């Protein structure tokens, strides 16, 4: 008999794996669903039949479906995501196409750098704003923070981004508007160049986390044990920090993990605005040129990160639930 927590966690892990499997099925079938013959769609109508046949053979399109799927899945798992379509040899001339993994790896590092920078700024900020707003509930401070966050929550990312560029870059000339970082730049240069995109992402996600922190604490304020603490004369900040906060961690951590997962999505638009060499921009370029292997690779990474972070949030909320930890 397994401990119920372990069992629930194993269940969630299983569900996550199944989801990833289904996602990979959907991604794989994206080639199948392309209208018309795939070779012709990529090489163009004027392509010779022999070229198309060679192209199909190169992709393995002449093999049966399930065989191709497991080949593809095995490749994905071992880091071999196939070759990009751009510069492909069979479209004439020498083969200049690059493996998807080679395109992806440095960009993934950049995207993770940007996302973690945004997380490092936004999480403490959101916690601070949320706790102080709960502390001074219904004060002018609370109301203005609330109105401000409700406003930024409804702004599109590119609006925030261009607003920041206009003010901080065009006028004040504090930060560069393009974040075209190079891989060999020293850390502080990269951090400096990445600051504006990270700030944009921060503004977009801080609102949600802050509102959740505030709501989680205020929800608890009606509990009898808080009233007890009030009656015995504990100060307001002591009540919130010592009595309310420990019990509010579960929803707060969940929403933080959820927002970090959201960073994965938000990062696409922000990368395009700032011409940041990350996975998001690579994916958008690949979508416009219909470079399917690259789209598949990027999408797989995005989906996996998103699913894993949500799984992580799930597991944390299970572990921190005392009713599950100590069953009767």
């Amino acid at each position, binding site marked *: 008999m397994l401990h119920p927590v372990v069992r629930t966690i194993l269940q969630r892990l299983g569900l996550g794996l199944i989801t990833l499997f289904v996602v990979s099925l959907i991604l794989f079938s994206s080639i199948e669903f392309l209208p018309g013959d795939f070779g012709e769609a990529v090489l163009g109508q004027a392509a010779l039949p022999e070229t198309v046949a060679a192209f199909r053979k190169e992709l393995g399109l002449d093999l049966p479906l399930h065989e191709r799927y497991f080949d593809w899945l095995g490749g994905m798992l071992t880091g071999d995501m196939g070759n990009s379509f751009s510069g492909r040899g069979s479209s004439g001339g020498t083969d200049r196409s690059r493996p998807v993994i080679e395109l992806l790896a440095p960009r993934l590092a950049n995207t993770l750098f940007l996302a973690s920078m945004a997380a490092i700024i936004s999480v403490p900020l959101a916690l601070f704003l949320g706790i102080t707003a709960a502390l001074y509930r219904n004060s002018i401070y609370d109301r203005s923070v609330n109105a401000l966050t409700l406003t930024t929550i409804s702004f599109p990312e590119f609006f925030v981004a*261009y607003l920041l560029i206009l003010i901080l870059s065009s006028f004040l000339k504090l930060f560069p508007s393009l974040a075209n970082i190079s891989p060999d730049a020293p850390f502080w240069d990269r951090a400096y160049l990445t600051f504006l995109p990270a700030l944009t992402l921060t503004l977009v996600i801080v609102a949600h986390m802050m509102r959740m922190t505030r709501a989680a604490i205020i929800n608890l304020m009606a509990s009898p044990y808080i009233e007890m603490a009030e009656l015995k004369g504990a100060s307001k900040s002591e009540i919130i920090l010592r009595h309310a906060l420990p019990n509010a961690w579960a929803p707060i951590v969940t929403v933080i993990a959820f927002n970090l997962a959201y960073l994965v999505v938000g990062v696409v638009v922000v990368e395009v605005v700032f011409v940041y060499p990350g996975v998001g921009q690579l994916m958008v370029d690949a979508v416009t040129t219909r470079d399917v292997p690259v789209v598949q690779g990027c999408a797989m990474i995005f989906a996996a990160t998103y699913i894993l972070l949500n799984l992580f949030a799930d597991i944390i909320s299970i572990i921190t639930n005392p009713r599950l930890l100590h069953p009767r």
Partner: protein
Amino acid sequence: MNNEDDLNPSAKAELADQGFSESDLGNHGYSATAEVTQIRARRSFRENIWRGLRSAPPTALFGLTVISLYVFFALFAPLLAPYGEAEIFDMSYAPWSDEFMFGTDQLGRDILSRMIYGARNTVGIAFVTTMFAFVIGGGLGITAAINNGGWLDNLLSRSVDVLMAIPSLIFALILLSMFGANTINLIMIIAVLDSTRVFRIARAVSLNVVVMDYVEAARLRGEKLAWILTREILPNIMPPLVAEFGLRFCFVFLTIAALSFLGVGIQPPTADWGSMVRETAGLIQFAEYDLTAAMTPMLPAAAIALLTVAVNFVVDWFLHKSSGLKD
């Protein structure tokens, strides 16, 4: 809606049927029928709206005003716009002037006219998409609730779980690369992706209604699924669905704007705010030489932001009102 300003006409007719005349009531003093009909007289629809508006917070009033302005511009775009949607003048990137109020874009099209047509295209497409999402998600959600625990419910719920596990912008990008980026595909893809969220909420709220006796009664008298869905359940889950519609609209609107901004959403020459931001974004570098030029890409972006804020304010008020919360 009932329009009962005083004693309503049907009530009067009912009294006449029972042998009363209006003067009878006055002469005999007390009459049980009169008292019952008196209670039925209630505030008119117009009065209710007026009362609601007067108690609305300023943020909600602001939101309502903004939304009506957008609707006005969207409906009368051809009359209000000084030039055509795709009319090209031989001045690209013209500065702000009397002739072109907000200048022209990279092809020499009037920004103001495109902004006004954009209200029609961007908002219209987002609205149609949200409607589709609600028809699909709402219909399936209620059906799943009626079939609670059955194979259909399980099938639908599990597929929705999987669809929701993929970030929707990423999923939309994948599907657009599969089917090609055009407006029809965009509407269908976003509608299907967003209907998963509608499905969840529609299923959750109708689960509470499905167990009611009157639904059971309708089933026992042999009503078809369509009747139970639209006549018994739908009217009773409207308030949460209306609030959700506002939130979903914001989300769809922002997603479409983001996709258009990325160049894979609404395609030119259709005027659309998201793609307008992308097309004129380069002008922002010239802020120190010509402030108005730098503001040009901000206009469509601000138009998107303003509408989303307005809808959020109204939804916030609506939720507050229908939940009766005081905090």
